[in-house]
């Protein structure tokens, strides 16, 4: 590595463009949001930056707090379901031969590269009242009826537009986020410890619970953070799968800009979301540092 002043012209030539772009189109907009979060609506289009904390105070109103806690709770439930679903997959990947391993990795990652909107739409098509799931249930229902069971007409289940639909959607979208850090952590595990535990008479489940899980804890923590953060800030999932009153923080922010026209409050909410995100990422870095190098890449 060279000191920049030993080769000034070349340094400036390569450094200037990305830095200026980053400052102009990322830092400046975010700074603007930050500034506006201390502002007030002054007239229909003008916003005066008055240094007020009123927008942040607004976030503590009961109806807003409700949305914030809903976001956290829904994202948390989805994250835990992801953990339960992903852990056995990560175990299998860790102990599979190289070929199976790369196939599993590819199969888990492939949906991840598919457009988020399209994946959400696919779920809607499955779960709507005239969708595939209800169609299957109606099919078995009709068989039961034709066999003489008196069940009456099939009433389609309302699977969409509620909080459970949001959770299912969040799990569906964020599952790959969980598998990768778990796999990265489990792959570095010292296998002789597991063998020793099995040799000494512990069963597979006991070994998992007492040996593998504690050793993989940093990876589990990283997986929880990596999954929880985007799940909490998700916009499309609650917007398309939730009912009109099932708001999460991102849909609430969107409303401030596109409907309620309360930009300062929307800015404050954005920064609350930013702060929470950054705190969690700092936590993740902390866990990584403690548990050796465990990364998603």
């Amino acid at each position, binding site marked *: 590595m060279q000191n920049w002043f030993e080769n000034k012209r070349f340094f400036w030539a390569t450094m200037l463009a990305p830095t200026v772009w980053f400052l102009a189109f990322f830092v400046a*907009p975010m700074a603007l*949001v930050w500034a506006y979060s201390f502002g007030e609506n002054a007239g229909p289009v003008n916003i005066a930056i008055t240094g007020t904390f009123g927008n942040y105070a607004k976030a503590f109103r009961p109806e807003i707090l409700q949305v914030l806690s809903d976001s956290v709770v829904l994202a948390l439930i989805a994250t835990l379901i992801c953990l339960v679903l992903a852990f056995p997959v990560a175990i299998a990947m860790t102990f599979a031969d190289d070929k199976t391993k790369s196939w599993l990795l590819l199969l888990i990652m492939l*949906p991840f590269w598919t457009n988020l909107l399209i994946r959400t*739409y696919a779920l809607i098509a499955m779960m709507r009242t005239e969708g595939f799931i209800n169609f299957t249930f109606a099919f078995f229902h009709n068989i039961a009826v034709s066999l003489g069971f008196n069940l009456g007409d099939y009433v389609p289940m309302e699977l969409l537009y509620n909080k459970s639909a949001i959770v299912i959607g969040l799990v569906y979208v964020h599952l790959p986020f969980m598998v990768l850090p778990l796999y990265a952590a489990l792959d570095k595990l010292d296998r002789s410890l597991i063998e020793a535990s099995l040799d000494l008479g512990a069963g597979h489940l006991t070994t998992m619970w007492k040996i593998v899980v504690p050793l993989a804890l940093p990876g589990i923590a990283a997986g929880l953070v990596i999954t929880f953060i985007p799940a909490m800030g998700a916009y*499309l999932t609650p917007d*398309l799968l939730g009912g009109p009153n099932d708001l999460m923080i*991102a849909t609430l922010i969107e409303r401030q800009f596109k409907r309620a026209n309360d930009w300062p409050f929307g800015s404050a909410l954005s920064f609350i979301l930013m702060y929470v995100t*950054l705190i969690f990422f700092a936590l993740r870095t902390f866990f990584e540092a403690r548990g050796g190098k465990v990364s998603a890449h």
Partner: protein
Amino acid sequence: MSKKPQRAPLEYSKSFRLRAWIFGVLLFLYAPLLILIAFSFNDSKRNIVWKGFTFKWYVKVFENDALREALFNSLIIAVLCTIFSVILGALAAFVLWRFKFPMKGLLESGLNLPIVVPEICMGVGVLMFFNKIHWPNDLPWPISLSQIIIAHITFSFPFVAVVVRARLESFNKELEAAALDLGASQWRAFTDVIVPHMTPGLIAGALLAFTLSLDDFVITFFASGPGTITFPIKVYSMVRFSVTPEVNAASTIIIVLTLIATAVAMKFQDTSPNKENA
């Protein structure tokens, strides 16, 4: 404990219960997508009972002017975003890899922010920024996409930088020193020695940027002026109202495009980071 003696103790991937679990997870991940693709070929408006094979929904997608225009816009945005992101990302990766300079740590972690910041926050920032500087909304067609393109470059190029940086780690710095010793100018050594080594990273990064741009909905939703429609935005407005085979067909086109981009990217990346992780 000796019910299955044919399996070695650590061969969990051969366990039946674990296989059933994985099958279940994969079914959950893939069933909706496969059904979506299958029904884009279904000859029935109702979208649920198989009536026979047809391409007519694809024909309809291409006859739908608004949809075709949206698809075209998205592709133009993605291509321009890719070109700029690769250049900016490669330069950023190179500078961070090659030089020591004041506030380097700040720039390095700063460049990670667009990757971790929630999309909605960036979307809001972009909306307010273009509003504040009074970016004109009524520009002629290709230039009217500039807000979206700028926003896409901003969140894509840090991803490219990460990929290219990973590739640069395997570069033998003595090669550059040798080129300089043999009389090459700094710039010549860069283009003739370092860039060729970067190439797999550049291609992987390019396809990543392309996919990210094609995929993005939230930031585009905020960055786009009233008249500009991209493919995800058009699909969004269609999805809000109904589930139709036409949307299935349009979605299938995008899935196939992304799959191709991903497959090519994996082929190029195969030589570097994946192997090191395995």
